[in-house]
């Protein structure tokens, strides 16, 4: 047996660590992440507070640990929502074509042209500014790009011989889609989904920076990063640690995504 490639090793290691931290953070943190301590505002990293404290005297390490679970959970749900929604739309649109495709794609392009912040503001107002509001808003905002990529793949494949062969063999349309078309979408989708994962982690902090803070009750890496900006001169650690967490998570996801794609891509099987 061969060793798994380097990207899978590093990626797996990073994501594994993240999962452990998130799991631990969900049940135990050194301090209560919401507890204020007025005597320890903006304390630099020390033995007492390994990663320092924030402007309310809250322990940064505890908040990072508690935030891991929330941030990851929000990102996973958002990406899942966007991928499911986008794949469904793209698949049907590309497969059925004709008027249905035109109408759906007109809507899809309209959504793509919408700046995320307007969409987020609108949906958050309707759903409520909480965790699920963010997931729904960002999920809907990212679905159109997925739909576009899936539709493109479907269009380029549907006239290929092996699709026609599948039909000739009497396979149902549904089976053909699931068996032959979907797997070919996986490679581009993996790339997109891993980037999306990163966008979601950051989108919240950008919204927060523009004055549309949507913090759920628990801390998230995104809002920690956005909040840290005002203290860049006095307390660099406030931004560096959540930023580092986001970077490492992204790196892990990307590397792991590459490895997963290599395994799943039908054209890759047997090569290399």
């Amino acid at each position, binding site marked *: 047996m061969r060793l798994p490639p380097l990207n899978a090793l590093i990626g797996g290691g990073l994501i594994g660590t993240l999962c452990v931290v998130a799991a631990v953070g969900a049940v135990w943190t050194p301090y209560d992440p919401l507890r204020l301590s*007025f005597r320890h505002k903006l304390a630099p990293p020390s033995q007492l507070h390994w990663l320092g404290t924030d402007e*309310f005297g809250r322990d940064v390490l505890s908040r990072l640990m508690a935030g891991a679970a929330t941030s990851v959970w929000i990102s996973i749900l958002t990406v899942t929502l966007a991928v499911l929604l986008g794949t469904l739309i793209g698949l049907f649109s590309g497969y059925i074509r004709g008027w249905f495709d035109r109408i759906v794609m007109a809507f899809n392009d309209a959504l793509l042209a919408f700046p995320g912040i307007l969409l987020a503001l609108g949906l958050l107002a309707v759903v409520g*500014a909480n965790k699920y509001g963010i997931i729904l808003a960002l999920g809907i905002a990212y679905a159109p790009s997925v739909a576009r990529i899936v539709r493109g793949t479907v269009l380029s494949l549907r006239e290929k011989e092996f699709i026609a062969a599948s039909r000739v063999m009497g396979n149902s349309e549904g089976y053909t889609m699931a068996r032959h078309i979907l797997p070919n979408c996986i490679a581009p989708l993996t790339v997109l989904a891993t980037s999306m994962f990163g966008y979601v982690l950051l989108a919240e902090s950008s919204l927060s920076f523009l004055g549309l803070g949507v*913090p759920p009750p628990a801390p998230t890496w995104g809002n920690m990063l956005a909040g840290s900006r*005002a203290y860049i*001169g006095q307390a660099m650690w406030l931004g560096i640690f959540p930023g580092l967490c986001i970077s490492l998570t992204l790196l892990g996801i990307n590397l792991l995504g590459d490895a997963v794609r290599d395994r799943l891509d039908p054209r890759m099987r047997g090569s290399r």
Partner: protein
Amino acid sequence: MNRLLASACLLPLLASPALAQTLTVAVAADVRSINPGVNRDDNTDDFALQIVEGLVGYDEGGIVQPLLASKVETSQDGKTYTFTLREGVKFHNGAELTAADVVWSWNRYMDPKTDWRCLSEFDGRGGLKVEAVEAPDARTVVMKINQPNALFLDSLARTDCAMAGVTHRDSVKADGSWDKPIGTGPFKFGEWKRAEYFTMTAFDGYVSPKNDGKPDGYVGSKRPLLKEVKFLIVKDPATVKAGLTSGAIQLSEVLASDVEEIRKIPSLAVATAPTATRHVLLIQTRDAVTGNLKLRKAIAAALDMEEIVATASNGLGKPNNSPIYTRSAYFGEAQKQGHRYDPAAAKKLLAEAGYKGEKITILANKRPTVPSFPAAVVVQAMLQAAGINAEIEVIDWATQLDRYNKGNYQMQSFSFSARFDPALAFEQFAGPKDKQPRKIWDNPEAQAKIDRLTAIADKAERQKLVDELHKAVIDEVPLIFMYNGVDAIAHSKSLSGFQPWQSKLRMWEVTLAK
């Protein structure tokens, strides 16, 4: 006279480099228009009121004093006001100010086509009606109102009405549309590059009210000592900080959280001063949960004001549980009696209230100019510590204001803008909720007292009413006043004479050394 002579002699000597300079001030937003009191916000008022002046204005303590007038006389029945104009006052175009100009200017404001923001304050819809404005001679303006009103002059001086600032008729184009303000203020309108900057230049012919060179609200000495002031629009507080450090910006309001850091920069100084804005926690008395008086009292007892204020204001503010601001003439011993922090009492009150852990949502926004969010964070933590299931919902300011106007909330971390007169300070939040859902305190008995406060002028009698009202607010907890706003203005040390006052960046009497 001596002072004038002295400064006239000194000017060419020391001031030529200074006067040749432009002072750059960072502001967070563009002005909405250059038409005073029409399309406006606080920032627009601030700019307009350096260019135009009204008959009367506020002094440092928020008391109304003559400005373009040298004196104001009230008739026995309290319905006729006679303003005598100050001598030698000129418009920016060189024309002398006459009573006819004041009448023309007033009639323009009262024309519904002008869209003056304060039209409804003076046309009878708000109770007060100006029935006639006349100019018996070039120096005298007479205004007649429908009924005695202790707040008439106060309304005239309001900054959001642009002081009913007098403008020359050439401010308006031939077709009747607005061109640019030609006023009597210490600065002339310069240039406006939308979304980038706006400027004003010194008015050399300005005749300042005499006050020994000391500024006093809008009515003290107001000599323009800077050649030009450029207001640069910079939205991001971090960029402002960088601009101040580099010297590209010489003066700007800064965040309370930045004060300590900026004070460490050798080239910069920070001036702070309390204002009449009031940071408050609104509580909806018609909500199923917070409608319970015992619960509201429990909330008040669970809050350690000292800590809240210290954190939300970064140590710049002082707690004040009264609707009356600390510098007001009406702020006395009674107003110092606020809520007492008592966790044990809070527990007991919660039990008596029959509270079973129902969720209470505090609305907050993240505008950097108000402490809405940090205050909410501290309050939430304290309420949770007392066993109250408090949560924060962060929404944008427009949404929060909408829910304020509709009364659709349990609690809000909110800020009331400045109100100098106590009658207005109470009127701001008291009233019938059925008619105006935005009102917070619906108490007919208190309403009668506020109406009385509006009508009478006697200081002692007013003070008594103010004290009673204050006590009722503390007892009924329809809202919790936390503290008065604090202006924190950072400026270059080469700049002198600047004094922060009620969030207004007054540029008169300010000099820049090279």
